[in-house]
Protein backbone atom coordinates (compact mmCIF):
# COMPACT_ATOMS: atom_id res chain seq x y z
CA UNK A 1 0.00 0.00 0.00
CA UNK A 2 1.35 3.39 -0.82
CA UNK A 3 1.67 6.33 1.51
CA UNK A 4 -1.47 8.15 0.39
CA UNK A 5 -3.69 5.11 0.68
CA UNK A 6 -2.45 4.39 4.20
CA UNK A 7 -2.80 8.03 5.17
CA UNK A 8 -6.39 8.19 3.98
CA UNK A 9 -7.25 4.97 5.82
CA UNK A 10 -5.99 6.26 9.19
CA UNK A 11 -7.60 9.65 8.52
CA UNK A 12 -10.90 7.95 7.74
CA UNK A 13 -10.70 5.95 10.98
CA UNK A 14 -10.21 9.14 13.02
CA UNK A 15 -12.94 10.94 11.14
CA UNK A 16 -15.40 8.11 11.75
CA UNK A 17 -14.59 8.08 15.46
CA UNK A 18 -15.00 11.83 15.61
CA UNK A 19 -18.34 11.69 13.79
CA UNK A 20 -19.62 9.22 16.35
CA UNK A 21 -18.25 10.94 19.46
CA UNK A 22 -17.88 14.58 18.36
CA UNK A 23 -15.99 15.53 21.54
CA UNK A 24 -12.97 17.27 19.96
CA UNK A 25 -14.86 19.26 17.36
CA UNK A 26 -17.59 20.44 19.72
CA UNK A 27 -15.21 21.48 22.50
CA UNK A 28 -12.89 23.25 20.06
CA UNK A 29 -15.73 25.07 18.37
CA UNK A 30 -17.28 26.11 21.65
CA UNK A 31 -13.94 27.20 23.11
CA UNK A 32 -13.12 29.28 20.01
CA UNK A 33 -16.43 31.10 20.20
CA UNK A 34 -16.04 31.59 23.93
CA UNK A 35 -12.65 33.22 23.40
CA UNK A 36 -14.19 35.76 21.01
CA UNK A 37 -16.66 36.77 23.70
CA UNK A 38 -13.90 37.02 26.31
CA UNK A 39 -11.78 39.17 23.95
CA UNK A 40 -14.72 41.43 23.24
CA UNK A 41 -15.49 42.01 26.92
CA UNK A 42 -11.91 42.46 28.03
CA UNK A 43 -10.77 44.85 25.29
CA UNK A 44 -13.97 46.75 24.47
CA UNK A 45 -12.29 48.46 21.50
CA UNK A 46 -13.50 51.19 19.16
CA UNK A 47 -14.09 49.87 15.60
CA UNK A 48 -10.96 51.39 14.04
CA UNK A 49 -8.72 49.74 16.64
CA UNK A 50 -10.41 46.38 16.18
CA UNK A 51 -9.24 46.14 12.56
CA UNK A 52 -5.65 46.64 13.74
CA UNK A 53 -5.89 43.98 16.40
CA UNK A 54 -8.06 41.48 14.55
CA UNK A 55 -5.21 39.30 13.16
CA UNK A 56 -3.51 38.97 16.53
CA UNK A 57 -6.76 38.23 18.38
CA UNK A 58 -7.88 35.71 15.78
CA UNK A 59 -4.56 33.90 15.91
CA UNK A 60 -4.60 33.76 19.69
CA UNK A 61 -8.00 32.10 19.46
CA UNK A 62 -6.77 29.64 16.81
CA UNK A 63 -3.64 28.78 18.81
CA UNK A 64 -5.61 27.97 21.94
CA UNK A 65 -8.30 25.95 20.19
CA UNK A 66 -5.66 24.16 18.12
CA UNK A 67 -3.76 23.18 21.25
CA UNK A 68 -6.98 21.82 22.67
CA UNK A 69 -7.30 19.60 19.62
CA UNK A 70 -3.67 18.49 19.74
CA UNK A 71 -3.88 17.29 23.35
CA UNK A 72 -6.78 15.05 22.29
CA UNK A 73 -5.11 13.90 19.07
CA UNK A 74 -3.62 10.67 20.38
CA UNK A 75 -6.21 10.19 23.12
CA UNK A 76 -8.02 7.40 21.29
CA UNK A 77 -4.74 5.56 20.78
CA UNK A 78 -3.77 5.84 24.44
CA UNK A 79 -6.90 4.07 25.58
CA UNK A 80 -6.91 0.24 25.33
CA UNK A 81 -3.36 0.10 23.91
CA UNK A 82 -4.59 0.99 20.45
CA UNK A 83 -1.30 2.70 19.67
CA UNK A 84 0.58 -0.58 20.07
CA UNK A 85 -1.90 -2.26 17.74
CA UNK A 86 -1.44 0.48 15.15
CA UNK A 87 2.32 0.18 15.38
CA UNK A 88 2.16 -3.61 15.03
CA UNK A 89 0.25 -3.31 11.78
CA UNK A 90 2.36 -2.87 8.60
CA UNK A 91 1.64 0.85 8.60
CA UNK A 92 4.17 3.42 7.40
CA UNK A 93 4.94 5.78 10.31
CA UNK A 94 5.03 8.68 7.86
CA UNK A 95 1.43 7.86 6.91
CA UNK A 96 0.40 7.87 10.56
CA UNK A 97 2.01 11.29 10.95
CA UNK A 98 0.33 12.68 7.82
CA UNK A 99 -3.05 11.29 8.79
CA UNK A 100 -2.90 12.73 12.30
CA UNK A 101 -1.73 16.13 11.01
CA UNK A 102 -4.49 16.18 8.40
CA UNK A 103 -7.08 15.25 10.97
CA UNK A 104 -6.13 18.08 13.31
CA UNK A 105 -5.94 20.40 10.29
CA UNK A 106 -9.44 19.34 9.30
CA UNK A 107 -10.82 20.07 12.78
CA UNK A 108 -9.07 23.44 13.02
CA UNK A 109 -10.20 24.53 9.54
CA UNK A 110 -13.81 23.72 10.37
CA UNK A 111 -13.55 25.82 13.52
CA UNK A 112 -11.78 28.66 11.69
CA UNK A 113 -14.40 28.68 8.93
CA UNK A 114 -17.02 29.50 11.54
CA UNK A 115 -14.99 31.64 13.95
CA UNK A 116 -13.61 34.07 11.35
CA UNK A 117 -16.97 35.27 10.00
CA UNK A 118 -18.29 35.29 13.56
CA UNK A 119 -15.44 37.61 14.53
CA UNK A 120 -16.44 39.96 11.72
CA UNK A 121 -20.02 39.96 12.93
CA UNK A 122 -19.31 40.36 16.65
CA UNK A 123 -16.76 43.14 16.19
CA UNK A 124 -18.70 44.92 13.39
CA UNK A 125 -15.80 44.79 10.95
CA UNK A 126 -15.95 45.84 7.30
CA UNK A 127 -14.13 44.29 4.38
CA UNK A 128 -15.97 41.00 4.01
CA UNK A 129 -14.44 40.67 0.54
CA UNK A 130 -10.99 40.21 2.14
CA UNK A 131 -12.06 37.08 4.00
CA UNK A 132 -11.05 34.57 1.27
CA UNK A 133 -7.50 35.97 1.13
CA UNK A 134 -7.25 36.05 4.92
CA UNK A 135 -8.48 32.50 5.06
CA UNK A 136 -5.80 31.39 2.61
CA UNK A 137 -3.05 32.81 4.84
CA UNK A 138 -4.70 31.21 7.85
CA UNK A 139 -4.71 27.89 6.00
CA UNK A 140 -0.94 28.04 5.46
CA UNK A 141 -0.35 28.97 9.11
CA UNK A 142 -2.67 26.24 10.32
CA UNK A 143 -0.80 23.65 8.24
CA UNK A 144 2.45 24.66 9.96
CA UNK A 145 0.78 24.58 13.36
CA UNK A 146 -0.74 21.13 12.84
CA UNK A 147 2.40 19.57 11.40
CA UNK A 148 4.73 20.69 14.18
CA UNK A 149 1.93 20.23 16.71
CA UNK A 150 1.45 16.59 15.71
CA UNK A 151 5.17 15.88 16.15
CA UNK A 152 5.17 17.55 19.56
CA UNK A 153 1.94 15.84 20.58
CA UNK A 154 3.63 12.49 19.87
CA UNK A 155 6.82 13.59 21.63
CA UNK A 156 4.91 14.45 24.82
CA UNK A 157 2.71 11.37 24.53
CA UNK A 158 4.25 9.49 27.43
CA UNK A 159 5.02 12.44 29.67
CA UNK A 160 3.36 13.22 32.94
CA UNK A 161 1.13 16.32 32.77
CA UNK A 162 1.36 16.20 28.98
CA UNK A 163 -1.55 18.55 28.40
CA UNK A 164 0.43 21.21 30.27
CA UNK A 165 3.76 20.33 28.72
CA UNK A 166 2.60 20.44 25.09
CA UNK A 167 2.05 24.21 24.80
CA UNK A 168 5.28 24.84 26.72
CA UNK A 169 7.39 23.06 24.13
CA UNK A 170 5.23 23.95 21.12
CA UNK A 171 4.66 27.71 21.41
CA UNK A 172 8.32 28.86 21.32
CA UNK A 173 8.81 26.78 18.18
CA UNK A 174 5.69 28.27 16.59
CA UNK A 175 6.93 31.87 16.71
CA UNK A 176 7.79 32.09 12.97
CA UNK A 177 4.29 30.89 12.05
CA UNK A 178 2.58 33.26 14.48
CA UNK A 179 4.57 36.30 13.35
CA UNK A 180 4.29 35.48 9.64
CA UNK A 181 0.53 34.88 9.61
CA UNK A 182 -0.24 37.94 11.68
CA UNK A 183 1.94 40.20 9.49
CA UNK A 184 0.41 38.82 6.29
CA UNK A 185 -3.11 39.32 7.61
CA UNK A 186 -2.34 42.86 8.78
CA UNK A 187 -1.05 43.75 5.32
CA UNK A 188 -4.10 42.28 3.64
CA UNK A 189 -6.43 44.17 5.97
CA UNK A 190 -4.66 47.52 5.60
CA UNK A 191 -3.60 47.42 1.94
CA UNK A 192 -6.08 44.98 0.44
CA UNK A 193 -3.37 42.65 -0.82
CA UNK A 194 -0.16 41.01 0.39
CA UNK A 195 2.18 43.73 -0.91
CA UNK A 196 5.22 43.98 1.31
CA UNK A 197 4.33 40.83 3.22
CA UNK A 198 5.23 38.51 0.31
CA UNK A 199 8.49 37.52 2.00
CA UNK A 200 6.54 36.56 5.12
CA UNK A 201 4.42 34.29 2.96
CA UNK A 202 7.55 32.61 1.61
CA UNK A 203 8.79 32.10 5.17
CA UNK A 204 5.47 30.48 6.03
CA UNK A 205 5.64 28.17 3.01
CA UNK A 206 9.23 27.28 3.85
CA UNK A 207 8.22 26.42 7.41
CA UNK A 208 5.43 24.13 6.18
CA UNK A 209 7.66 22.32 3.68
CA UNK A 210 10.54 21.85 6.14
CA UNK A 211 8.44 20.41 8.94
CA UNK A 212 6.28 18.17 6.74
CA UNK A 213 9.52 16.63 5.47
CA UNK A 214 11.13 16.40 8.90
CA UNK A 215 7.93 14.90 10.30
CA UNK A 216 7.74 12.14 7.69
CA UNK A 217 11.42 11.31 8.15
CA UNK A 218 11.56 11.39 11.93
CA UNK A 219 8.14 10.17 13.02
CA UNK A 220 9.03 6.49 13.42
CA UNK A 221 11.65 7.51 15.99
CA UNK A 222 9.12 9.75 17.74
CA UNK A 223 6.29 7.32 18.08
CA UNK A 224 8.21 4.16 18.90
CA UNK A 225 10.37 5.84 21.52
Amino acid at each position, binding site marked *: MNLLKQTSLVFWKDLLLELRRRDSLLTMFFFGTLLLFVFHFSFDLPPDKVAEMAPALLWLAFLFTGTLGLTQLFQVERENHCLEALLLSPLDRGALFLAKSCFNLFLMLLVELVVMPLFWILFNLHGWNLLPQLFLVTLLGTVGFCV*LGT*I*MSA*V*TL*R*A*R*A*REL*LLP*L*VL*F*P*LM*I*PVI*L*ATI*RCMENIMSAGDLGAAA*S*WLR*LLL*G*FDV*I*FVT*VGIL*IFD*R*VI*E*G
Partner: protein
Amino acid sequence: MSLGAIVVGLYWGLVIAPPDAYQGEVQRIMYLHLPSILTAYLSYFLVFIGSCMYLWKREKRDDILAHSAAEIGVLFTALTIIEGSIWGRPTWGVWWTWDARLTLTAILLLIYTGYLMLRSLIEDENRAASAAAVLGIIGFLDIPLIHMSVYWWRTLHQPPSILQPNKAPWENIAWPLLIPLLINIVAFLLLLFYLLSLRYRLGEIRDEIRMRRLEQSA
Protein backbone atom coordinates in the same frame (compact mmCIF):
# COMPACT_ATOMS: atom_id res chain seq x y z
CA MET B 1 43.40 25.91 33.49
CA SER B 2 40.07 27.39 32.45
CA LEU B 3 39.78 29.17 35.78
CA GLY B 4 43.27 30.61 35.34
CA ALA B 5 42.47 31.83 31.84
CA ILE B 6 39.27 33.50 33.07
CA VAL B 7 41.14 35.24 35.86
CA VAL B 8 43.77 36.51 33.42
CA GLY B 9 41.17 37.48 30.83
CA LEU B 10 38.97 39.29 33.34
CA TYR B 11 41.88 41.10 34.97
CA TRP B 12 43.11 42.22 31.59
CA GLY B 13 39.65 43.21 30.46
CA LEU B 14 38.53 44.91 33.65
CA VAL B 15 41.72 46.59 34.82
CA ILE B 16 44.37 46.83 32.13
CA ALA B 17 42.35 47.46 28.95
CA PRO B 18 41.37 51.10 28.37
CA PRO B 19 37.68 51.98 28.68
CA ASP B 20 35.66 52.26 25.48
CA ALA B 21 35.82 55.63 23.75
CA TYR B 22 32.03 56.10 23.68
CA GLN B 23 30.54 53.89 26.34
CA GLY B 24 33.17 54.19 29.05
CA GLU B 25 33.52 51.62 31.80
CA VAL B 26 30.17 49.91 31.18
CA GLN B 27 31.49 48.42 27.96
CA ARG B 28 33.72 46.11 29.97
CA ILE B 29 30.82 43.72 30.40
CA MET B 30 31.47 42.71 26.79
CA TYR B 31 34.33 40.57 28.09
CA LEU B 32 31.72 38.33 29.71
CA HIS B 33 28.71 38.89 27.46
CA LEU B 34 30.17 37.76 24.15
CA PRO B 35 31.97 34.67 25.47
CA SER B 36 28.80 33.53 27.32
CA ILE B 37 26.57 33.69 24.26
CA LEU B 38 29.17 31.96 22.08
CA THR B 39 29.39 29.20 24.66
CA ALA B 40 25.61 28.89 24.71
CA TYR B 41 25.41 28.64 20.91
CA LEU B 42 28.10 25.99 20.85
CA SER B 43 26.23 24.02 23.53
CA TYR B 44 23.03 24.05 21.46
CA PHE B 45 24.98 22.83 18.49
CA LEU B 46 26.28 19.98 20.66
CA VAL B 47 22.68 19.20 21.71
CA PHE B 48 21.81 18.91 18.02
CA ILE B 49 24.78 16.65 17.26
CA GLY B 50 24.12 14.46 20.30
CA SER B 51 20.41 14.17 19.43
CA CYS B 52 21.10 13.18 15.81
CA MET B 53 23.67 10.63 16.88
CA TYR B 54 21.33 9.18 19.50
CA LEU B 55 18.41 8.73 17.12
CA TRP B 56 20.75 7.17 14.59
CA LYS B 57 22.88 4.83 16.71
CA ARG B 58 20.81 4.62 19.92
CA GLU B 59 23.82 4.82 22.17
CA LYS B 60 23.39 6.13 25.69
CA ARG B 61 26.54 8.25 25.60
CA ASP B 62 25.15 10.50 22.82
CA ASP B 63 22.06 11.12 24.87
CA ILE B 64 24.12 11.99 27.95
CA LEU B 65 26.11 14.42 25.80
CA ALA B 66 22.94 16.13 24.51
CA HIS B 67 21.42 16.35 27.98
CA SER B 68 24.60 17.77 29.53
CA ALA B 69 25.06 20.31 26.74
CA ALA B 70 21.43 21.45 27.05
CA GLU B 71 21.79 22.14 30.76
CA ILE B 72 24.97 24.13 30.22
CA GLY B 73 23.43 25.97 27.27
CA VAL B 74 20.45 27.08 29.36
CA LEU B 75 22.81 28.25 32.11
CA PHE B 76 24.91 30.36 29.75
CA THR B 77 21.89 31.78 27.92
CA ALA B 78 20.43 32.90 31.22
CA LEU B 79 23.80 34.44 32.18
CA THR B 80 23.97 36.26 28.84
CA ILE B 81 20.53 37.76 29.34
CA ILE B 82 21.37 38.87 32.87
CA GLU B 83 24.67 40.43 31.80
CA GLY B 84 22.99 42.04 28.83
CA SER B 85 20.31 43.68 30.92
CA ILE B 86 22.87 44.97 33.41
CA TRP B 87 24.63 46.57 30.44
CA GLY B 88 21.40 47.69 28.78
CA ARG B 89 20.17 49.68 31.77
CA PRO B 90 22.93 52.35 31.72
CA THR B 91 23.47 52.23 27.94
CA TRP B 92 20.01 51.99 26.39
CA GLY B 93 18.20 53.18 29.51
CA VAL B 94 16.06 50.03 29.83
CA TRP B 95 16.54 46.58 31.34
CA TRP B 96 14.79 44.86 28.51
CA THR B 97 13.61 45.80 25.06
CA TRP B 98 11.86 43.78 22.36
CA ASP B 99 14.75 43.89 19.98
CA ALA B 100 15.29 41.02 17.54
CA ARG B 101 18.44 39.62 19.06
CA LEU B 102 17.18 39.88 22.63
CA THR B 103 13.95 38.19 21.63
CA LEU B 104 15.80 35.42 19.85
CA THR B 105 17.94 34.75 22.92
CA ALA B 106 14.88 34.68 25.14
CA ILE B 107 13.15 32.24 22.78
CA LEU B 108 16.23 29.99 22.86
CA LEU B 109 16.01 29.99 26.63
CA LEU B 110 12.33 29.00 26.43
CA ILE B 111 12.92 26.21 23.90
CA TYR B 112 15.72 24.58 25.84
CA THR B 113 14.02 25.02 29.20
CA GLY B 114 11.13 23.15 27.58
CA TYR B 115 13.62 20.50 26.50
CA LEU B 116 14.81 20.01 30.08
CA MET B 117 11.22 19.93 31.39
CA LEU B 118 10.25 17.34 28.81
CA ARG B 119 13.09 15.10 29.97
CA SER B 120 12.16 15.38 33.61
CA LEU B 121 8.48 14.60 32.95
CA ILE B 122 8.97 11.27 31.16
CA GLU B 123 9.65 8.41 33.55
CA ASP B 124 11.00 5.82 31.13
CA GLU B 125 14.68 6.67 30.50
CA ASN B 126 14.83 5.48 26.90
CA ARG B 127 11.60 7.17 25.91
CA ALA B 128 12.69 10.39 27.58
CA ALA B 129 15.92 10.20 25.60
CA SER B 130 14.28 9.78 22.21
CA ALA B 131 11.57 12.36 22.88
CA ALA B 132 14.23 14.86 23.96
CA ALA B 133 16.38 14.02 20.94
CA VAL B 134 13.50 14.83 18.59
CA LEU B 135 12.96 18.15 20.33
CA GLY B 136 16.72 18.82 20.22
CA ILE B 137 16.75 18.36 16.44
CA ILE B 138 13.54 20.25 15.69
CA GLY B 139 14.47 23.08 18.03
CA PHE B 140 17.81 23.51 16.30
CA LEU B 141 16.26 23.39 12.80
CA ASP B 142 13.74 25.99 13.87
CA ILE B 143 16.38 28.49 15.02
CA PRO B 144 17.15 29.93 11.52
CA LEU B 145 13.41 30.43 10.89
CA ILE B 146 12.89 32.12 14.26
CA HIS B 147 16.00 34.19 13.57
CA MET B 148 14.61 35.42 10.23
CA SER B 149 11.17 36.16 11.59
CA VAL B 150 12.26 38.15 14.61
CA TYR B 151 14.77 40.10 12.53
CA TRP B 152 12.11 41.12 10.04
CA TRP B 153 9.96 41.93 13.01
CA ARG B 154 12.36 44.54 14.44
CA THR B 155 15.96 45.39 15.11
CA LEU B 156 17.48 47.81 17.61
CA HIS B 157 20.54 45.98 18.90
CA GLN B 158 23.68 47.45 17.43
CA PRO B 159 24.97 45.40 14.50
CA PRO B 160 27.72 42.96 15.44
CA SER B 161 30.69 45.03 16.58
CA ILE B 162 33.47 42.78 15.45
CA LEU B 163 32.28 40.45 12.70
CA GLN B 164 31.10 42.73 9.89
CA PRO B 165 30.78 41.62 6.30
CA ASN B 166 32.88 44.26 4.56
CA LYS B 167 35.68 44.73 7.06
CA ALA B 168 38.24 42.40 8.50
CA PRO B 169 37.52 41.62 12.17
CA TRP B 170 40.72 43.18 13.48
CA GLU B 171 39.93 46.58 11.95
CA ASN B 172 36.80 46.98 14.05
CA ILE B 173 38.29 46.69 17.49
CA ALA B 174 41.48 48.06 18.97
CA TRP B 175 44.12 45.52 19.94
CA PRO B 176 44.16 46.35 23.66
CA LEU B 177 40.43 45.48 23.76
CA LEU B 178 40.63 42.48 21.50
CA ILE B 179 43.31 40.58 23.42
CA PRO B 180 41.39 40.22 26.70
CA LEU B 181 38.23 39.42 24.71
CA LEU B 182 39.97 36.58 22.90
CA ILE B 183 41.48 35.30 26.14
CA ASN B 184 38.02 35.26 27.69
CA ILE B 185 36.47 33.48 24.72
CA VAL B 186 39.11 30.76 24.97
CA ALA B 187 38.60 30.66 28.75
CA PHE B 188 34.83 30.24 28.41
CA LEU B 189 35.24 27.49 25.85
CA LEU B 190 37.61 25.69 28.22
CA LEU B 191 35.04 26.16 30.97
CA LEU B 192 32.37 24.71 28.69
CA PHE B 193 34.40 21.58 28.05
CA TYR B 194 35.29 21.26 31.72
CA LEU B 195 31.63 21.55 32.82
CA LEU B 196 30.60 19.26 30.01
CA SER B 197 33.05 16.55 31.06
CA LEU B 198 31.88 16.81 34.68
CA ARG B 199 28.23 16.70 33.71
CA TYR B 200 28.88 13.87 31.27
CA ARG B 201 30.60 11.83 33.95
CA LEU B 202 27.62 12.47 36.25
CA GLY B 203 25.30 11.19 33.54
CA GLU B 204 27.38 8.06 33.15
CA ILE B 205 27.36 7.42 36.89
CA ARG B 206 23.59 7.90 37.05
CA ASP B 207 23.15 5.48 34.20
CA GLU B 208 25.37 2.93 35.89
CA ILE B 209 23.43 3.20 39.14
CA ARG B 210 20.22 2.66 37.25
CA MET B 211 21.61 -0.44 35.53
CA ARG B 212 22.86 -1.90 38.85
CA ARG B 213 19.46 -1.32 40.43
CA LEU B 214 17.80 -3.11 37.54
CA GLU B 215 20.22 -6.02 37.92
CA GLN B 216 19.55 -6.23 41.64
CA SER B 217 15.81 -6.20 41.27
CA ALA B 218 15.94 -8.83 38.51
